[in-house]
Structure formats: C-alpha cells, structure tokens
C-alpha cells in the first residue's frame, strides 16, 4: 500500500494547517465480479486515524462508497513541535502507517 502524506514542515502555534493523505488501495465495494463471474469480496480501508504527539486528532471511517485510492484532506491546529502518525487498516486485515514531523514555533 503506497501512501503519500503532506504535512507542513513548519507552522506557527495556533495556525490551522492542512493535512493531506493519499493511499493506494482498490477499495473493493463487494459488488463487483471478476472475469470468471466470481464475486470479489469487499475490501476497503475502513479506518484511518491520525495522532498528533500521541493524541488522536482525526479519525475517518470509510465504507463502500469511497472511490479507489482514497484521498483525504483535513485541518488541525498546530500546537507543539513533534510527530503526526497515521495508521489505517482494511477489511482484509492489512494495515499501514506513516509518520511526519512538524516544527511549531
């Protein structure tokens, strides 16, 4: 699961900063069949959590309605320098994680 994360390297305390996450994933709806007519089991990234210095600041729960290779963007308030950590998992049990650091002055 290739993923891309965009977090500003620097921010001022109190700033609203944009976080962008893109994950390569087929987001199988469970409604499709393969070339032989066999149903392809549902397999979507069902959860993505972002923690800022250990504290959860964003959570997305996803289902069949999301297109393949989901792209999420959200805002958080820059509080302290440190680390943003992203964890996600899909219906098949596969998980992924990424981290990014930020300097807040």
């Amino acid at each position: 699961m290739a993923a891309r994360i965009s977090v500003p390297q620097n921010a001022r305390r109190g700033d609203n900063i944009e976080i962008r996450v893109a994950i390569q994933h087929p987001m199988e709806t469970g409604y499709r069949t393969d070339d032989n007519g066999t149903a392809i089991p549902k397999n979507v990234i069902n959860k993505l959590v972002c923690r800022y210095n250990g504290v959860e600041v964003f959570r997305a729960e996803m289902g069949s309605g999301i297109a393949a290779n989901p792209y999420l963007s959200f805002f958080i308030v820059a509080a302290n320098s440190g680390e943003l950590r992203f964890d996600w998992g899909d219906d098949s049990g596969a998980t992924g994680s990424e981290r990014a650091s930020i300097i807040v002055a």
Partner: protein
Amino acid sequence: MSGYRLPLILIAGWLAAAPGVSVAQTAVRPQPLKSGIEFTGPEVRALQEDEFANPAMLWITRGAALWQQPVGPAQQSCASCHGDVATMKGVATHYPQIDKGSARLINLEGRIQQCREVRQQTAPLRYESEDLLALTALVRMQSRGMPLAIEIDPQNRRHFERGRELYYRRVGQMNLSCANCHQDNWGKRLGPETISQGQGNPYPIYRLEWQTMGSLHRRLRACLSGVRAEMLPYGAPEYLDLELYLAWRSGDLPIETPGVRR
C-alpha cells in the same frame, strides 16, 4: 476489462456526417498539435496538475520504492546500477526503439523488463502489473516537459510504416480506423467524451473510469474494444508499431507523465 462502449446508433449517425473515407497513404500530424488534457475539462486538468492530489503520484511513490529495492541473486536494485532516478532524464524520449541485441522494436516497458530479466536475473513483471506501471511512470516522469525524440530511419522504418498502416486501417464491427476518430474528427463530441488527437504523451495515466493506472496499450485496447474490434495482448508487436507511429505523430508535444484522464 472496463472499456467504454459506444452506442452504435450514435456512432452510425455521427459517421454519416464524417468526411469521406480516410485512406491517407502518407503520414500526417494533426495541426495544431494538442495534448489530450486540453479536451478533458477543468476538474481533470486540475487533478493532473496537483502534484499531491494527482492519484497517479501514488504509483510514482511506489515506483521510487521499487527503484531502491534489491532483487535477484546479486541483490541489485535499479539504483545499484543507475544511481538516482534523475539520471533517467531524457531516456523515455527515445522509446520505442530498436533493441540492438534482438533487433526488435521495444518500448520503455520492454526495456525495464529486460533490465529485470537480464541484469537483475529475476522474474519479469506482468505487463499491466502495478509494479511495471509504477516503474514505467517513474522513469517516464523524469522526461516530463520534453518532447519525444523519435527519428524514422532505415532500422525502424518497417515498424513505422506498419504502424501507419494500422492507424489508417478500418477495423471492428464499426469499421472505423484510428484516423477516423483522432485525425479527422478530433474536437468533436462522441457521447460523453470529446475526441482528442489520441496522443500518447501522458501515459501511463490514472484513468478515473478505471480507478487505477493504465498503460498506453490498455488505452489502445479500450479504443479497439470501443469499435468492437479484436484486442491483442499487451505488448503485441502491432501495438508497438502503433506506439512508434504515435510517437512520431506527437511531434513536439511534451511528455506529461503521469497524466490523469476521465
């Protein structure tokens, strides 16, 4: 294979209005040359131009990881021999080309496969696999903004002529040639789409309809399926010949890899 389906009625009516049969015996480029991005609409264009939101960038990220990954008995990565991927700048502008060793026409995918098989001594990648798409897109992106530099010479002329011949040959249940759509009727609407000049400059692309990345050959297959003609396997010699013709026909249009299409 999710090709689009053209409504027969629509196409029949549209063709009746189309100018005479095109049996050009000479190779011609559309004038002025236009990239397909000019026909896609503002949303797709914005997506292609946004370095982060462009979904194809996920394959570039994947390709960059593969570039560093040691494989085969000698545990060599692409980087072990080629260094930084930036050294690939300009390389894609020379493909497809005649491979000196085999005297065959090969495209960029073929060259990458050759490095895997011969130099890394490992299993080739499936033509339309995520990994081959990722590596091809990564290498081709290094030449973004550069036009192709294809010369027709005695070595490749046979392939070029064959590519041109295929381009003008009417095929399928709808009896249409590539030229009927992309040379004679670009800019016109066909169902939900505007027909472009059928340029290969953005490939491999992320196509929203496919919800994934696809090669130029996948696009050719989609066009052939659209006119209900026989589809050939990925990497087929006929597709390589067509790819060479398309490369010549794209003139000085810059490479846009990785593109986004509807």
